């Protein structure tokens, strides 16, 4: 199957491993991710301000592009893009007054957006379209030596009713990890905020969150954290540098993208370039995968 794919800014610059691993993994699963033409930055965050619709133009323009290319769904990897696109879409569909205003402002577009694009996150595609059974079949036991803690963060779950699963007790990420053959570690901080954009002006505050989240994951026996957002990745991975200053006893923990894990599960080699993008070394994870493949010869 083919689906239009929205990468978002960071996947082209600081999170190349996320995109590369995704393209490879989904191709092996029979899904062609066709990059949307003329996409623009979605704005990263959904604005809660009710009296200014300008903030919603960026995400809605992307959805218009989807419709212009004849698509009815757009695939995202980044949870922030997912949240922003989906919320803007819902606002456009549910609020006739704002919808009219936005259409007027976008008068220079060739077409009007009809509100019919659907925003799909990678986890949803794996669960609903590809199916967990198919995933299980294609991945085997390569990850059987791994205990992975999925980190949902905020944008995949909130607000209630918009996310990929129930905001307080989700299971889709754990289900996908299990379907990939690894043991899923359900740890209590899986939906706790990493600090997001506070990393710009208050990196120590974020580094404390990093400590709390990774400590909780370690406490539940996880070997690595799995994320689906380049900001979460930055905060939980790169900021470990500051965390180890604040907490000398802190031991680094690898933070991998969902699709990097998917590649490992599907037997796709882990890119060298990808290694370089990670701050905390991913060798422990790669070694565990090697152990299994070594045993099975």
């Amino acid at each position, binding site marked *: 199957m083919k689906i239009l794919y929205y990468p978002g800014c960071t996947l082209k610059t600081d999170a190349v491993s996320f995109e590369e691993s995704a393209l490879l993994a989904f191709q092996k699963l029979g899904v062609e991710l066709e990059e949307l033409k003329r996409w623009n930055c979605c704005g990263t965050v959904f604005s809660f301000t009710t009296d200014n619709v300008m903030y919603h133009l960026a995400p809605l323009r992307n959805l218009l592009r989807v419709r212009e290319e004849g698509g009815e769904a757009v695939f995202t990897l980044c949870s922030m893009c997912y949240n922003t696109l989906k919320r803007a879409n819902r606002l456009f569909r549910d609020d006739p007054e704002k919808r009219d205003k936005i259409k007027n402002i976008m008068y220079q577009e060739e077409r009007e957006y009809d509100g019919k694009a659907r925003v799909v996150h990678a986890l949803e595609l794996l669960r609903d379209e590809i199916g967990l059974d198919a995933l299980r079949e294609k991945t085997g036991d390569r990850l059987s030596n791994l205990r992975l803690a999925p980190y949902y963060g905020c944008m995949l779950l909130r607000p209630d009713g918009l996310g990929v699963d*129930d905001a*307080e*007790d989700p299971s889709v990420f754990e289900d996908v990890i299990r379907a990939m053959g690894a043991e899923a570690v359900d740890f*209590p*901080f899986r939906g706790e905020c990493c600090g997001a954009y506070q990393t710009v002006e208050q990196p120590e505050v974020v580094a404390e969150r990093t400590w709390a989240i990774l400590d909780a994951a370690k406490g539940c026996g996880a070997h690595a954290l799995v994320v689906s957002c380049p900001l979460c990745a930055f905060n939980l991975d790169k900021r470990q540098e500051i965390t180890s200053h604040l907490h000398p006893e802190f031991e680094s923990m690898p933070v991998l993208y969902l699709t990097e894990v998917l590649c490992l599960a599907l037997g796709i080699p882990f890119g060298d370039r990808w290694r370089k993008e990670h701050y905390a070394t991913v060798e422990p994870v790669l070694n565990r995968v090697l152990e299994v493949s070594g045993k099975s010869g």
Partner: protein
Amino acid sequence: MKSAPQKKIGVFVCHCGKNIAAVVDVKKVVEEVAALPGVVFSTDYKYMCSQPGQALVQEKIREHGLEGVIVAACTPSLHEATFRKAASDAGLNAFCVEMANIREQCAWVHQGEPDAATDKAIEIITTMVKKTGLDRALVEDTIPITKRALVIGGGVAGIQASLDVADAGYDVVLVEKEPSIGGHMAQLSETFPTLDCAQCILTPKMVAVGTHPKIKILAFSEVRSLDGYVGNFKVAIERKARGVDWTKCTGCGICMEKCPTKVPAEFERNLGKRKAIYSPFPQAVPNKPVIDREHCLHYTKGKCGICEKVCEVGAIDFDQEPEIIEEEVGAIVVATGFDLYSRSNLGEYGAGRIPDVIDSLAFERLLSASGPTSGEIRRPSDGKVPQTVVFVQCAGSRDPEKHKPYCSRICCMYTTKQAMLYKHAVHGGQPYIFYIDIRSGGKNYEEFVERAQGEGVVYTRGKVSKIYQSGDKVAVMGVDTLAGKPVRIDADLVVLAMAMEPRASSSELSRILKIATGPNGFWTEAHPKMNPVGTTTRGIFLAGCGQAPRDVPDTVSQASGAAGKVISLFSHETLTLDPLTVEVDEEICAGCGICVPVCPYEARTLDERKKIALVNEALCQGCGACMIACPNGATVHRNFSKKQILSMVDSLL
């Protein structure tokens, strides 16, 4: 054709203080109305419902020989009965008295338009003059009463109601779906504010019920259907298959001792076990076991049968079938009680999967000397004695956004009690209560809370946001809104004061009994202030938490209240029926039978022999559906005839 002589009608226009008079020009109304054909007298008065107001009506009936009375005032649902009685005492048939609603339907809704409101008031009264002119004097029929009560639910409410009705000399059938009566109160350790042992104060009443010559307990049974009407109900009760012949069983308990199968005990909130053949607790009434067919090896695998072998009186009867028992009763008390909202609904508190996060009823079982740990407080996970216990109030209550919008009323008090009892049991232990408000409005309740604070219970004002497993402790993320700081406590045990909700079986029972439940599933009372024990169905009454959350004193009081209503009903030899129902003109009726399925109250039948439709006037609620359905107008609603309604409409055109 000579038309009937005009009835002499009197119109009394009420000011209702300022309610009507501030908007409607009552003097003008009186003047205009006096000129209507049929009106021989009209006047206004400040408060018609007062004694002098009623006396005025009576005086004028006598003075003018009135044959019809209209009181233009508030809604008939408030004072129609008042004026009917007053008129009747003065010799005028009650059903020739009408009310014209010029308050709720006129003055109150047109407060900005006094002229228009005055005109409308005149119009309303004009239509009522037309109706009243055609009203017939009606006689109230009577029906017999079966002086036997059905009580549904054997918790403390059902127990109290049964005892009161039986002590007044009437038979009671008490239906309880569990193997024993006692309800949730039997699960409690001690009750607030007296710290009485719950079982000690409840079991005397249970025994009284069990030995009362006038009370028949049908345990392990459920109501399946209800027919009839007040004084004359027919109820079908299913006695579920127990697998034990209770007429032979002596309650010796050997079968329970020898049974090899252990399953989590519902009575112990799954913290302890029971056997597949079981009685829920030692003081059970009736003290006879039932077999859980889902877990008993005989039923699941065709094996075992040890109970049958050891029973000395041969009471085990594996092939026992459920049976339907039919009873005839005159009144019903619905005392179905409550359940606790499930922890699985609160994802942020662990979704019910953290072993050391339990609900309040489970903690009661830990506190109870006859509980799964014999009254020792032990963590479900590892059996250790918890030194730090966090109690979380309002778990699921006061949450209109996601869970229950209402306050469950008893949790502040029982949490205080549980914290104190915990401290009594674990001397060095520290209880913390996270609360939003402390609601302690009952007698001696505030003093009880003060005592708890004095005994070292730490109250922290703030709603807990998240609870999670942290090592072998349970981390509680809360806040102290009074000190203005986020708070974290690593607890050994967390007790959630889960919201009270009505039994899941209420919705099916609602369909069977044809009484309503409200938006939160609780039974709907006849009037929230003036009649909290009645329902809109005559003869069916409510008691206990099935109607709304309440504590034991209020439950017992309400149960006695419901029993009082039953006793009052039974104190008559016959019951009078409201005559404002439907009648069939046998001359016109063609026996087509269309009216029968149309009636929502199943009040219509067809007499096959005479080929005419019949009305059961006790079941008929006067909704009028049959009157509309009847193709040749044979069905007439007394004092709401087509002629009357059309003449009312005509007068406005």
